[in-house]
């Protein structure tokens, strides 16, 4: 790891100002589980590392059935994984976080960090997009909200500019009609980067889908919504024929690349299978 300057700002204002001043040459460290790997492998150069862990208020966690879930930028993946509120209300997110790296990694990594790295295969992003999450972003004294599905601009790229700090994430509460699922596809049962990830968040009553959001991971430059497939399903009775049609549609919406982990054709095939299965699980099937 090359040498770097290290900062521990005490307030958001101080951190934001520092990041704005240092520009592209600075990286925020929260969990550090991705950043340190990138620095060690020379995949990222950063002469300035800004540790935001000394800033108060970023570890908050709150859930209530009216306003949903909100948690701060320093909440770890493991805290989300072991939260009864998350397990009870956001089974897709709970599943995704349990599949991210190892417990050792999850004890350090933060959900917001996983989002900000903007990897197309990040585990937490598909369920959060499917659930309609938004990020709170602080910059120079003001806070704004960005819907997560408008946050990414490419692999490793987001709408953030120097000085922006994501302070937390929030998402609406589920309703009694909500059904959710996340399926990660990889060669092993753990310690995998997703070759395909599919998250579904839907509203359904007696087999009828009133609303649905489908997010596909690792099959496009960013995690994407399968919007045409959502349109196809919205307002319809879900049956085997429609599921097959949805699977085919999701495959068409994916634009995967092939690499050593899986070929493009196989990823596309898995988008179909996993979309069909995820909808089934979201509607109460056993995962």
């Amino acid at each position, binding site marked *: 790891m090359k040498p770097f300057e290290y900062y521990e700002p005490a307030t958001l204002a101080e951190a934001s100002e520092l990041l704005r001043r240092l520009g592209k040459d600075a990286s925020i460290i929260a969990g550090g589980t991705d950043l340190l790997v990138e620095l060690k492998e020379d995949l990222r150069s950063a002469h300035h590392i800004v540790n935001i862990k000394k800033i108060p208020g970023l570890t908050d966690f709150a859930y209530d059935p009216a306003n949903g879930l909100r948690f701060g930028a320093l909440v770890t993946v493991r805290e989300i994984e072991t939260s009864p509120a998350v397990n009870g209300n956001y089974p897709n997110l709970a599943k995704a976080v349990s599949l991210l790296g190892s417990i050792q990694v999850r004890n350090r990594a933060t959900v917001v960090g996983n989002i900000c790295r903007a990897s197309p295969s990040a585990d937490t992003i598909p369920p959060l997009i499917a659930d309609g999450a938004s990020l709170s972003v602080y910059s120079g004294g003001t806070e704004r909200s960005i819907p997560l599905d408008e946050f990414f601009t490419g692999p490793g790229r987001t709408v953030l500019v120097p000085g922006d700090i994501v302070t937390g994430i929030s998402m609406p509460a589920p309703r009694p009609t909500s059904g959710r699922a996340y399926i990660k596809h990889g060669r092993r049962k753990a310690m*995998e980067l997703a070759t395909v990830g599919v998250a579904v968040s839907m509203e359904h009553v007696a087999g009828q889908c009133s609303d649905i959001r489908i997010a596909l991971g690792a099959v496009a430059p960013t995690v994407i919504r399968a919007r045409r497939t959502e349109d196809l399903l919205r307002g319809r009775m879900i049956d085997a024929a429609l599921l097959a049609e949805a699977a085919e549609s999701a495959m068409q919406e994916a634009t995967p690349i092939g690499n050593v982990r899986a070929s493009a054709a196989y990823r596309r095939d898995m988008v179909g299978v996993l979309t069909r299965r995820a909808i089934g699980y979201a509607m109460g099937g056993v995962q």
Partner: protein
Amino acid sequence: MNTHERIDRDLSERDFTVVGKSVKRSDTLEKVTGAARYAGDVALPGMLYAKMKRSNIAHARIKSIDTSKALALQGVKAVLTHQDVPRVLHAGSPHPRSASVTKDQYILDERVRYWGEGVAAVAAVSEEIAERAVALIEVEYDPLPGLFTIEAASDPAAPPIHENGLGQNYVLPPVFVTRGDVDKGFGEADLVIEREYDLGRPTPAYMEPNVCVSQWDGNGKLTMWTSTQSAFMVRGTLAEVLGVPLNKVRVIVDHMGGGFGAKQDLFQNEFLCALLARRTGRPVKMEFSRKETFVGGRSRHPGKIWLKQGFTRDGRIVAREARVTFNSGAYGSHGPGVTNVGTAALTSLYRCENVRLEGRCIYTNSPIAGAFRGYGVVQTYYALDLMMDEAAEKLGFDPAEFKLMNAVREGDMAPSGHPIVGHGLVDCIRRVMEETNWHELRRREKPETVKRRGIGIGCEMHGSSAYPGIKEQGNAIVKMNEDGTVTLITGTAGLGTGAHTALSQIVAEELGVPFEAVSVVQGDTDIVPWDIGAFASHTTYLGGRAAQLAAADVRRQVLEHAAPLLKAEPGDLAIRDGFVVVANGSNQSLRLSEAVGPQRGMPAVQLVGVGTYMPTKSYSFAAHFAEVEVDTETGEVAVLEVVPVHEIGRVIHPIAAAGQIEGGIQQGIGHTLSEDYVIDLTDGRSLNPSFVDYKMPLSMDMPSIRTIIIETAPDPGGPYGAKGVGEDPIIAIGPAIANAIYDAIGVRFHHYPITPEQVLNALKTKANETRQ
């Protein structure tokens, strides 16, 4: 019932006091407390850190290397290139008495032959500065054509990767093995099957990256702490290449973090580390990163096996013909040994009198293939066993019954040219069938569900020791101290298999002392007797036998000494539980300390026994049962259960033996389903040199394993009949899984690893064929 209870039950009929018991492994206390010192844990005052510059081209001549920027960096103490190191051609696989080693390596050459080969090395005051200096070294290359496949490299028009005069990039002249009359055999056949099998590139991926520490003293003596399976081979090769006598090189291996065969080689680092230490006059540590451990390491030999067999209607094999072609990568390493052993293995396992085999090994500009658990036999028995499964079906036999009918038996000629002792393979297959209710499972209904289950059986045999390829030798010194305790001084390396515990058990058994009375001195070439290294499933077989012989020598001396004290003949005495006892009748006995300790002002008797053993060969056997579940929509294969039955003659330490079996199965499951070290076929670059992308099965992927060890064919050459076990499990599991996949989905694969994508595509093809 857990594994060791089961083994203990199976092995209950015996009168040994120490052998066969799962005593607490004496070599693991330091490991569980973190006190065990591995080479990378050595820290010396003033120590420098070294890093290697590696090529970013697979095949080229080095036009120039500019080290000036690196040398100018603050903290850099020395830089070495091919111009600064002795140019001595040496073998990568340094077996001293093997006829087949290939001298084809220099410490640093003016040419690179694979992507990631070391071209320079730096020593600096910190690892981080050494890394920065490496990045500052500028190398200019004259590219040569990259020959990445067997086909490209063996083209007669291809340029030679090494100038050995053999042509077609042969590492060694083709190996031919012939028995009987193959053409006549095929003439009698009712069924002929001919197939080509394609073998991937698994790597050992041991947990401890390659590492060494070098220090020279004022008298020109080098001490090296290194992670090797063959300390004396490292000593010999270092001495030869650096031009110093053997007594000026001391190699120390206290503990090592796995090797699985690959750490028999030297990896450029040993030489460079020693030379940097000599150049700077300071101790130097050189540790590979995980990526370097992949890139600069050794893989199993990839390759192709063309196999053709003739069968009669009544289920006999009447002819077997094979062409085995291995990809050696950029250097010979173990290519000659692997080609000889892997090819010759096809004479056996399943009986066939008419055999014609040819083995080739080809240089390519790909990662170096070396020794790896199973040594060529993983590859050839995968092909052979898969074809047996196929033949059984075509001839209308149950696959297990068919393998049982054709299994080698007592007196059959083994690949080594020796008659096989006992019916070990037959016993293993029978036991697997009983244990798993094989016939009942085969009759089980198979619903056409998304997830489908299947069962398979795979068989193997493997030799303990590398004879006749290498004439091996194991040595041990056993001392009895004046209080009756015992010190075993052994050259046998502690690879992590529990060998030192097993050797202590053997010594304790032979001397009639409790296990706790034996302590082990090992791992220092200045102290322990010469040893060839820990490989070829021979540490217990060979090192154990040498220890047994040394202990027997001490026992003889003890009894001779005690005889007058007990007023008896030595032949009437025995040692039991630390006492010399008169064997027949009288109740007389003498505590060992009284028998050998100082008495009446006289010093204690010096009791030193030396054992030297040069083994021939024995074979261990195994049959594995595997049950798999195939997801027909994703192509994923999960191994649900494995039942391995191993015949190993005499088990010395049941838990350690089972640990070998279960670990081998883990690696074999990986080989068969997920592990493949891949290079880009356009430039030879590694595509997955990391634990994320090189897919080893981990805790959640591993199935439950029900290990069964039987002792029906003890070998007179091993201690108390014991044979090897280290390599066997990795050979049998692959075919068991591939055969189980066929049973589940009706598709036969002829390669490994069998990926989900290939399973899915094969299912699609099959569905299309059915529709037509």
